[in-house]
C-alpha cells in the first residue's frame, strides 16, 4: 500500500525511535535505530548517518530498505519500503 508520508509525519519525529533494516550481499540482515527521519515530500524522506556504517554499506551495495515507524500518540506502526536515490553532503537539504 502506498502511503502519503505527510499522513504519518508524527512518526518521523523519533519520539519512539524508528528502525532501519537493510540486507548485506550475503543475505544477512542488519538493524539500526534512527533518531529522526526528515520529511522531504510525500514520496521522499532523508536519513542522516553518523554511526550507521553497516547500514550505509548495505544501502550503497544496493540493499532495499525497510523502516519501521511508530506513532507515539496512538501506537500505530508503519513499515515503509525505501529505495536509495542519492547522498547529499552539502546544500540546503544537508544543512
Amino acid at each position, binding site marked *: 500500500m502506498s502511503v502519503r508520508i505527510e499522513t504519518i509525519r508524527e512518526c518521523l519525529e523519533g*519520539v*519512539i*525511535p524508528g*528502525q532501519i*533494516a*537493510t*540486507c548485506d550481499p550475503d*543475505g*544477512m*540482515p*542488519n*538493524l*539500526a*535505530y534512527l533518531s529522526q527521519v526528515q520529511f522531504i515530500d510525500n514520496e521522499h524522506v532523508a536519513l542522516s548517518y553518523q*554511526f*550507521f*556504517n*553497516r547500514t550505509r554499506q548495505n544501502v550503497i551495495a*544496493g*540493499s*532495499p*530498505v*525497510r523502516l*519501521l515507524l*511508530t506513532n*507515539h*500518540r*496512538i*501506537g500505530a*506502526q508503519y*513499515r515503509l*519500503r525505501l529505495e536509495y536515490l542519492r547522498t547529499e553532503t552539502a546544500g540546503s537539504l544537508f544543512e
Partner: protein
Amino acid sequence: MIDSQTAAFIQTGVSISVAACGADRLPSMSRGMGCLVSDNGREVRVFVKRSQAAELIENICYSARVACVFSLPSTNRTVQLKGSDARMEVFDAADLAVVEEHIALFLEQVVPLGIPEEVVRVILAYTADDLATVVYTPSAAFSQTPGPKAGKPLD
C-alpha cells in the same frame, strides 16, 4: 554464544526488534515481545506476533539468517545479535511469564521518558495464540550504542 552480562541485558526491559531478508534481499522486521536465553547462552529465543510478522517468519524460514537488536531506552545501550541458523517454533505457553515480565520491565523504562502507558500497551498488545518463537544461535554480536564504537563487535 553470548556472555552472561549480555544475556542478562537482553532479558531486561529492552526494546526488541527482529529482522530477516527474503530472496529479493528486501528486509522485513517486527517488534519482539520478550527474549529468553537458554542453553547457557548458546540459544536466544525471541517472541513475535505472527499477525505482525508474517513476512519476517517467511524470510526466516527461507534464509535462517536473522538480526535482533536490543536497546535499553533509559541508557540507549544497544546490542545487535546476528545468527545464521534461525528457525521458527510454536510458542510455548510456559513462556507467557517471560512476555508479561518483558512488558512490565519495558513500561518501567519508557513511561518515565514520557511515552504514555496506554500507548505502550497498544504496541505490545497480544494474544497467546498469536505468538511464535524465533530461535537461533548468536554467531556475531555488535555494540550499537550511539557513539564512536557503534557497529563494533562486542568486546
